[in-house]
């Protein structure tokens, strides 16, 4: 049952990816709604999977596999909400692969060790929760940044048919990227502070690499925000900064995952 649901979810995500990419590159009016429908179906299957997997009465945040899974789900939901606010449904072409990737990574996690009971606390749930929501926000910023970079490239190279026609305007993408970073940054900051607290308590060794990577991500996003607000940075450079920041955020997760695998081996 669980395995079947996992496969069904993965297949639906993959199908949504293909359909989104098809619509982005050579879509006709007729096919436009299909990928969205499939993506929503994938989210439905994913939700069922989360409910099936979660320990009763708890948030499914107890190990890195669950964190990856719920991040993937959160990105999908946040994207659906964002497509109401901005007219950006086509960005599913970037969101769906990201969701799929994180979801598949969560599936590798049968070998991931759960968080040791001695560090479990309300504070930990808040730490993880804030970081997950922050990650979701940065993921949207990342998607907007990728789309911005691609769209700007197409505009500069005068390739104005196909994808250029279907992607949102540069202004919308830039605004979306900025807002998502502004939402994610305080959450990441909170996550960093709570993380440092554990780092110090554990004597500085246990999660050092992840914490260091997190600090780099934090610094990059801080830089992006400061330059945007103070120096009027926008467009391509801001998009590149956002993309780099997100990559480091993912590295933090990868760090935890590798540690978990290594720890249990």
């Amino acid at each position, binding site marked *: 049952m669980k395995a079947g649901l996992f496969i069904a979810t993965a297949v639906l995500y993959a199908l949504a990816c293909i359909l989104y990419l098809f619509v982005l590159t050579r879509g006709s009016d007729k096919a436009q709604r299909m990928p969205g429908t499939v993506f929503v179906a994938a989210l439905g299957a994913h939700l069922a999977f989360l409910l099936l997997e979660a320990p009763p009465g708890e948030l499914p945040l107890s190990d890195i596999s669950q964190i990856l899974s719920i991040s993937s789900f959160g990105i999908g939901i946040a994207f659906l909400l964002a497509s109401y606010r901005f007219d950006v449904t086509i960005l599913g072409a970037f969101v769906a692969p990201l969701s799929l990737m994180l979801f598949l990574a969560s599936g590798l996690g049968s070998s991931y060790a759960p968080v040791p009971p001695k560090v479990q606390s309300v504070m930990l749930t808040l730490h993880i929760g804030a970081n997950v929501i922050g990650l979701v926000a940065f993921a949207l910023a990342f998607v907007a940044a990728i789309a911005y970079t691609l769209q700007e490239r197409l505009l500069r190279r*005068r390739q104005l*048919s196909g994808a250029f026609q279907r992607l949102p305007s540069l202004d919308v993408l830039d605004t979306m990227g900025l807002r998502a970073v502004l939402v994610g940054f305080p959450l990441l900051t909170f996550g960093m502070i709570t993380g440092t607290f554990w780092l110090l308590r554990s004597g500085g060794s246990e999660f050092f690499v992840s914490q260091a990577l997190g600090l780099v991500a934090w610094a990059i996003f801080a830089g992006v925000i400061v330059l945007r607000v103070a*120096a009027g940075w926008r467009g391509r450079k801001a998009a590149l900064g956002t993309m780099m920041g997100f990559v480091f955020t993912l590295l933090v997760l990868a760090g935890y995952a590798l540690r978990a695998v290594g720890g249990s081996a």
Partner: protein
Amino acid sequence: MMRDFVVVGLSHRTAPVEVRERLAVAPDHLEQELRAIAANGRFDEALLISTCNRVELYATSTSPAEAAQSAKDTLVTRLPDAVPDDVLYQERGVDVVRHVFRVASSLDSLVVGEPQILGQVKEAFDAARGAGTMGTLLGRCFTQAFATAKRVRSETGIAEGTVSVSSIACELAKKIFGNLEGRRTLLLGAGEMGESAARSLRQTGTQLHVVNRSEERARTLAESCGGRAVPFERLTMELADADVVIASTASSKFILTPELMKGVVRTRRHRPLFIIDIAVPRDVDPRVGNMDNVFVYDVDDLQQVAEENLAVRTREAAQAERIVEEEVQSFVSWRRSLELAPTIVALRKRFGQIAQEELQRALPRLEDLSQSDRAVLEAMGRSLVNKLLHQPMTQLKADAAEPDGALLIDAVRRLFALSEEESPQSEASTAGGTEAKVTQLAAAATGPTGESK
């Protein structure tokens, strides 16, 4: 007699604008005009399409040749004297149907794929309905034309991509700035193409500022485009405040140099700037296009986009023509199902078949029948069929030519379950051929009964 379609008209293909504008009818006069045309002409139904690129009178009549002449006369009287009447074209029968479908799908437009024509055809349709000059045949034909146009738009890329330099400039601006409402366009110089691009942008809701070395010129231009004239000395400041710049001066040197623009970009805090360089020779140093958040398109770029879009449309037009052909065939088969001749043939065939079947069933039960007895029985069967069919056939023949004849035929086909497949007509049959056949068949149907009287 079969009712048939005619169209007489002129379009951008056959007549220059001076002629077209003489014939054009304003949309709110369409209904009134149509009533007058219908009152004088020999039409069963009439519909008038009038746009700046075409004026066409569609009609149906049981005597299409006369109707075509009448329609032609109607239009010729409106032509200026010096114009030869070969600017008018006419079509008959199924070619009219194809023509309407192509017109509504924007395949016959000056700019293939332009979207306005469908609305204009719908206006014509409403006017004809309002004037009471539209019956079943034109009604069905135009309704299917709208469906065809919709199919063409959704199944082909014929309407994709804009093809005029001004509208491409607008589209690009939208792709950069999203909503153009409240943005500012700066028109630099007084070239004609620049002016038209500025007008297009103005229509999308941007403010317009005009800068020119001659302040006089700037003022007239600003007035005609609904913008504001600004002195040339303020150029740098205006550049810092604008979102879209249309450069179209006659200057032989670059006006927007990297040195100038570096300061401008700093002042505007990196807000995106879209520069359209329509001037030849160019006003904008190409190096400006490499600056962050500054996008420069020159006239060649825009022209190239226009050509690419046009090429896409032309490719898509072939696909659209196939859709039109499919729809024409579907209309023709609907039409044929309502024709008199095949209906009569099918009806006779159905009745004859029943008589034959009953005869086959009865004969084995009768013993010792001579050859002549058999002949009598067979003759009786035939005669029964003929007598039963005589009155309906006569009535059908008489009423088929009436405006609602098609409905009667439709009713007969349904009452006796005559499906379309049974129709023995070949596709190639022309209107004239059909008429001859009808007479012949009707005679065949009623003839024997006549003789037996």
